[in-house]
């Protein structure tokens, strides 16, 4: 793994990768951005400025950053309910993302999507998806369209360990393998689907599922961004060369609750010791240790400013007007009838 990862870091910098870059500081910076963004968002949930809560990504930053750093700016991703990290790693503006979470007109989706539906097509983000497993076939379809258009675009579709038991994901793996589609199936195995431990839900394994469809797979340390970057770089090369999909299983952990609602309920599906054990291998520390201390301090300070500015932007942005509640419902412009009969 280390071998692979080592290769990757030095390879392929001819065209600039997005947006973390392959350089150690860039990777760290991107992870720090996600961490601080999430901390900020948690505060805004607490203050009621983000309505409905979020699924925090804290602890899993190396996965999003490692995967997205292996992609080119023109490549694509789809994301999940726990999607802030993916969106930021792929290069969306954190201010517009935060504005989206706050339901502002300046948000990525003009306040229509929120945490679970953030999309930024201009940055190659075809949308978070609130349905477990729901994005994978959409990603495969986009990959299929890209191939038909003669493009060498690659698409990474993120999903959790819980999605490994969702039929549509398995159907999609079959189709992607069958048609050699340039899809990276990125399984963020954080050990749990809400309160359900992976071992209680998954017979066999993630890699076994890939093998079922003749698809290569690799399991990596999801706390080490270089490991993720290395594995992904290899998979991207295969996909771009027309050799089809790869499953990347990143072993990772979420430090926080499944969803901020969980903070209101006492749950005991995992131990404090387990959380502490994973925190010892914090992805930011692992990558941070590879940098001069001064660089790290500089980046941290820079990110603090970026996030403060983002918060300021979100807070000061206007809310969308209720008259426009049904805007965008039909791309064709059709206006359906309202909920009450006229006259």
């Amino acid at each position: 793994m280390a071998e692979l990862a080592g290769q990757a870091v030095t390879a392929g910098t001819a065209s600039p990768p997005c947006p973390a870059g392959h350089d150690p500081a860039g990777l760290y910076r991107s992870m720090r951005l996600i961490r601080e963004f999430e901390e900020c968002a948690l505060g805004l949930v607490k203050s009621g400025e983000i309505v409905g809560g979020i699924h925090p990504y804290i602890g899993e930053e190396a996965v999003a950053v490692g995967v997205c750093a292996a992609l080119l700016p023109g490549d694509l991703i789809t994301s999940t309910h726990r999607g802030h990290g993916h969106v930021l790693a792929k290069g969306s503006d954190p201010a517009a993302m935060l504005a989206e979470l706050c339901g502002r007109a300046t948000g990525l989706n003009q306040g229509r999507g929120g945490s679970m539906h953030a999309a930024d097509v201009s940055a190659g983000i075809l949308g978070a998806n609130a349905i477990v497993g729901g994005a994978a076939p959409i990603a495969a379809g986009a990959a299929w369209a890209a191939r038909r258009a003669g493009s060498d675009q690659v698409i990474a579709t993120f999903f959790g360990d819980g999605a490994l038991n969702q039929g549509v994901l398995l159907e999609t793996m079959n189709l992607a393998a069958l048609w050699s589609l340039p899809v990276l199936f990125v399984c963020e195995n954080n050990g749990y689907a809400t309160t359900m431990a992976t071992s209680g839900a998954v017979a066999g394994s993630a890699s076994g599922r890939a093998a079922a469809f003749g698809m290569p797979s690799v399991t990596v340390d999801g706390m080490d961004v270089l490991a993720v970057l290395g594995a992904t770089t290899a998979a991207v090369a295969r996909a771009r060369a027309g050799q089809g999909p790869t499953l990347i299983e990143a072993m990772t952990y979420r430090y926080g609750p499944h969803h901020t609602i969980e903070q209101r309920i006492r749950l005991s599906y995992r131990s404090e010791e387990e959380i502490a054990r994973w925190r010892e291998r914090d992805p930011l520390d692992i990558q941070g240790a590879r940098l001069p201390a001064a660089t790290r301090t500089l980046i941290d300070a820079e990110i603090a400013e970026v996030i403060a500015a983002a918060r300021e932007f979100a807070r000061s942005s206007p809310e969308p007007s209720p008259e426009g509640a049904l805007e965008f419902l039909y791309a064709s412009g059709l206006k359906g009838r309202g909920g009450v009969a006229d006259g």
Partner: protein
Amino acid sequence: MAKLSYAKALNRALADELERDQSVCVLGEDVVAGIAQFTLGLAKRFGTDRVIDTPISEQAFTSMATGAALRGMRPVIEFQIPSLLFLVFEQIANQAHKFSLMTGGQVSVPVTYVVPSSGSREGWAGQHSDHPYSLFAHVGVKTIVPATPSDAYGLLVSAIRDDDPVVLFAPALAMGLREDVTSELVPVPIGSARVRRPGSDVTVVAVGHLVSVALDVAEELASEVSIEVFDPRTVYPFDWELLAGSLERTGRLVVIDDSNRSCGLGAEVLATAAEEMHLVAPPRRVGRPDGAVLPFALALDRAIQPGHDQLVAAIRAVMK
């Protein structure tokens, strides 16, 4: 007697039925932890072989419940979000619902599907905020939307004991309701509606959490118009007889319900009333717009949901 919350009523119904009948079991995601409230404490009391956590395989476990029901069990399935019913529509509408007729009556499928917190919960946006009970009324699966804690209890008990598949929607906006329970909790028959407040000028059919809204409006407009608040409780089969009686008296009809307008429950009630019942003025319905997708931002989400002001306007319109 104590205040009973809606969530606790569902929980108690389940506990009572698990206690009473060994063939009852509960399946779903995170039901052991009870994160949707509904199953809190049940795994501890009845064991994890009767309250069972499943993988995120809704289609498989929904039809597994059908198979278990064919062999004498009475499974209750919890879905965490209303739109998961889209995902298992095949398994409910085309499998569970059809087994009895297709086999010439050889089997029955007594499965109960429960969606705690259905409809919009603030901030859950497009894919988690539907309230699709009209879909089940259309295909003919028994469908319940209780408005009060005691009805939630009584209807869930009846659903579990029923020999057919039954879907129960617990509206997000009703889950927090509390009720003074002065008498014993009892089963409520499926298919029987209830007049929540008698009135003589207009019948307001209100579904689920909107019953409270209708009662408030009735009170508020009391000096202006005498409003009868009609709670169907079961949206399929609908209690047409009771409605006909109500309209016989009032001759005016407004329906307020939280489903999309086109081909929704409101349409069915208006259509049946227009066909068969006494109406002296054009009826009105209040619901979500055609094809509604709830936007995330709170003000937009609220703009799309039926509520107080629209109901007042609709009542005034039918009184004109």
